[in-house]
């Protein structure tokens, strides 16, 4: 991984020196372990701040929305798909971007690590597919494959779909994984069980909107939940209002979500709201053969009409 860091710094420095870009958006070390933060570098001598490891799960496409500068942006597979979506939705122009592609090997789920150790985590290091965690009590080692974010463990688009530079050779894509097994399990339940399942899933939600803010798709100047004239949805903790928020947030991401996991990662109470967006991803794939952000020259599923679109839900 550290070779990725060196390569990112080298490319960024070159782009800034040659004035190909005005800024590079990447990651810097967070103030806490496993919490790397987005970082904007504007001067060639500042590139030492940039790092790369398995704690870069935030989606950097979120920091491109409506920007006017020429930007170098570090992009793993899912970020690159959200960049494609941004380009299709006119949120940024392809000509403004120099995409520094990172073949991704998955991001670590900080909650899985925290659940596996006692006490405060002092530092986390990785090498050769293993993650070593230091706490006051000592060191503990995990297999990286076992502490991946759930979305990364079933990701089949780890290599950037568009890029101008690459920091390494493409990685092998995962095969034989079923990204939608968890959604299928819910579909198999009865209506009553499904209602209960989501009641429990969403019960801890505090309406902080971190999931919305972390998502590159959620760029509306005023989100429907913040509007008061008209007020589309109540603003409190009423379970029906919470459910309405989650239902509509997911629906606004239909045909656009890349299952990058930034929303779930950002949630302070660990809600897997991705189950809702994933259901829509699953249906988009089954009904329209569509996966978001794979090509710059294809219009999204909900943006096109075809004479043979499925319509068996219409009487």
């Amino acid at each position: 991984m550290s070779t990725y860091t060196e390569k990112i710094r080298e490319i960024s420095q070159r782009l800034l020196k040659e004035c190909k870009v005005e800024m590079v958006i990447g990651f810097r070390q967070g103030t806490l372990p496993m919490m790397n933060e987005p970082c904007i570098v504007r001067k060639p001598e500042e590139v030492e701040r940039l790092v790369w490891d398995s704690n870069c799960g935030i989606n950097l496409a979120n920091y491109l929305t409506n920007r006017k500068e020429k930007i170098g942006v570090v992009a793993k597979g899912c970020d690159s798909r959200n960049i494609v979506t941004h380009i299709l939705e006119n949120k940024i122009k392809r000509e403004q971007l120099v995409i520094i592609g990172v073949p991704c090997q998955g991001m670590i789920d900080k909650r899985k690590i925290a659940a596996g150790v006692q006490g405060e985590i002092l530092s986390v290091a990785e090498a050769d597919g293993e993650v070593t965690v230091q706490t006051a009590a000592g060191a503990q080692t995990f297999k990286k494959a076992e502490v991946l974010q759930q979305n990364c463990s079933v990701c089949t688009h780890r290599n950037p779909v568009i890029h101008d530079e690459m920091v390494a050779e493409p990685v092998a894509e995962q095969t034989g994984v079923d990204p939608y097994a968890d959604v299928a399990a819910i579909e198999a339940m009865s209506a009553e069980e499904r209602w209960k399942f989501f009641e429990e899933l969403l019960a801890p939600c505090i309406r902080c909107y971190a999931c919305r803010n972390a998502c590159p798709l959620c760029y509306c100047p005023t989100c429907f939940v913040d509007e008061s004239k008209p007020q589309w949805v109540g603003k409190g903790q009423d379970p029906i209002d919470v459910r309405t928020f989650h239902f509509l947030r997911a629906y606004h991401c239909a045909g656009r979500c890349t299952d990058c996991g930034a929303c779930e990662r950002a949630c302070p109470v660990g809600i897997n709201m991705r189950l809702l967006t994933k259901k829509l991803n699953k249906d988009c794939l089954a009904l329209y053969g569509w996966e978001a952000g794979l090509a710059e020259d294809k219009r999204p599923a909900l943006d096109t009409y075809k004479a043979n679109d499925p319509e068996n839900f219409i009487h």
Partner: protein
Amino acid sequence: MKNLLELMGIEADRIHFSWISSAESTKFVKVVNEITAKVKALGPNQRFVKQAAKVA
């Protein structure tokens, strides 16, 4: 949208979509009758209903 509502536990027969031209009066009557029958069979909706605050 219907699929997502169903995933969240709304009964399949409670939500209906139709496409009826303003000239298709007989189709309108037929569809409304069908939908009414299906929803009646399910009984009153208990889910996705916000309970009004109880005032003493």
